């Protein structure tokens, strides 16, 4: 298979010599580049693998395994939020390359869905975005409603998407009431039994979870992932 100069640069070993690798080797290198948060190398590898005629679905699978490894390193506290954000960016860029490679786009497989949003009255979104990155890394599809989200929007999104998990993240205490109102909205709509509602963010504790009538709360993105997995019976990843 032909290897372009940018890919050669990425594939050089310590001694500067090009390492000749086969298809399995390319997949291993892509996995390593994503898990090691090496953006340029990851993207060049994907372009190169497509040029070499490799199966895009296998490329996606390798990229997912790389993301999965990032998630594990984050859970083991070897990576931090910054690494999680970077890996989410790399994965998004890889998917864009793969999408462009197909005239009609890639057929999306069915994935467990999670609705995320910052409740009404609160415009902070850092925590929510980090949870979103980790969930996506770990095989979930995230429907991100943004910030200052009205309770009824959460219900509508859950209804439309069929998601079984709804997550709300807040940094200010005045969002507690909006969280509670959102839980009530699910009850009034007759949806409460169908969804698990989790809370997170700097201002959230066990007490807040009780106050809002939610099902679970988390201190960080790892907790959110564990809750989402538990709600889907260990699915995803």
């Amino acid at each position, binding site marked *: 298979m032909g290897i372009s100069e940018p890919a050669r640069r990425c594939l050089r070993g310590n001694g500067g010599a090009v390492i000749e690798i086969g298809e399995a080797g390319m997949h291993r290198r892509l996995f390593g580049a994503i898990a090691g948060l090496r953006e340029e190398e990851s993207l060049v590898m994907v372009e190169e693998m497509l040029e070499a005629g490799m199966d895009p679905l296998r490329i996606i699978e390798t990229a997912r395994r790389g993301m999965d490894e990032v998630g594990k390193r984050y859970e083991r506290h070897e990576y931090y939020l910054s690494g999680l954000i970077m890996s989410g960016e790399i994965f998004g860029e890889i998917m864009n390359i793969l999408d462009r490679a197909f005239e009609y786009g890639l057929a999306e497989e069915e994935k467990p869905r999670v609705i995320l949003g910052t409740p009404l009255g609160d415009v902070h979104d*850092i925590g929510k975005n980090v949870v979103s990155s980790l969930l996506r890394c770990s095989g979930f599809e995230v429907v991100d409603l943004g910030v200052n989200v009205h309770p009824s929007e959460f219900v509508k999104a859950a209804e439309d998407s069929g998601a079984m998990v709804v997550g709300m993240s807040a940094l200010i*205490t005045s969002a507690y009431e909006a969280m509670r109102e959102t839980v009530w909205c699910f009850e009034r709509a007759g949806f409460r039994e169908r969804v698990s509602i989790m809370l997170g963010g700097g201002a959230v504790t066990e007490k807040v979870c009780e106050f809002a009538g939610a099902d679970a709360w988390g201190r960080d993105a790892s907790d959110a992932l564990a809750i989402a997995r538990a709600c889907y019976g260990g699915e995803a990843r």
Partner: protein
Amino acid sequence: MDALERIETAVRLGKPDRVPVVPIIDFFAGRYGGITQHDMLFDIDKADMALEKTLSDLGPIDGQNLSYAGLGRIMQLIFPTPPVMPGVRGVPPDGQFQFVEKAVMEPEEYRLIEERGPIRWILDKMKLSTPELGNPAGLLKAFSGAGRDIIKAGRSIKRWRRRGVESMVAYNIVFTPMEYISLFMRSFNDFILDLFRRPDDVKAASRALMKPMQMQGSMMVRMSGLKRVFMGGTRTSASCLSPRQFEDLALPEWREMCDFWVRKGVTPLLHFDSDWTAFFPYLKELPRGKCILNLDGTSDIFAAKEVLGDHMCIMGDVPAALLKLGEPEEVDEYCRRLIMELGADGGFILSSGCTIPVDAKPENVKAMLASVHKYRP
């Protein structure tokens, strides 16, 4: 001891007659005192009356940590990304003040800051949110309005000091360049990506912005007459950066900034939100007995005492959720633990974890303020 002596003793790692209590109380006092958040931010006289009622009903304090009371106009002016401001641009008058994540700078601009001149570049960015700064008349109007508010705030500080309430930092708010870039220029997400993609550009911008940040702080210290500065830290915390990124990019800034203030005889009040626990050992590189570490309830304040107790004054950290949803007995118990464990050998100031929430239960605030009189380590 009076309030100032009590605070200064704790800052120098000594043991005062009792633990001082210095919360961020402005938002809560506004609501409790019956005025809107807009009035609290834009009318210092009303804000002072609301605070007076709060302290008269709920108990005295030794000082106010950061306070935005009467400083709304200045907040609108100095932040390139305008915060959500109660009573402004459609926000309800009793809404909540919040910072907004919005990028107003492209990644290519890092290298242009030095070239354009950092002060001119900051002014360019401020004009995006406050276009009137673009003409001399508008500039004069904006700064004279801010100047009047600063004079009024100065009078208020003196009035409260006469009544035994020390203002810790007034409007002396300083950022390290990276915290500033992340909060006001690039937004958190983009800033984090920049750290991976163009760390040298971020470093160059940091070097260019260091002096203007110090100049701005020095001007505020001179105007307020208070030799303390409030330095917010969130985006370079252990929640966000890897230790390697912190060592390489953020720690040098924190060290340079703190050394600068300490050389000038000014005490940095490091208001560190989110989790800094894993980075506590690095803070030993800051000058001993000269800084205050103010935690918001997310970091492990007891670990801070273990690691840094003989190095810097610890301040904190009654959590916002506890003050809003807890019971007075729970607040009392948490404060007792803080006072007896962290205050046992001095070097501790009791404070709210970040701010006392606007909707805290008054009886919880009362329990917090009373605890320093009830428990004597």
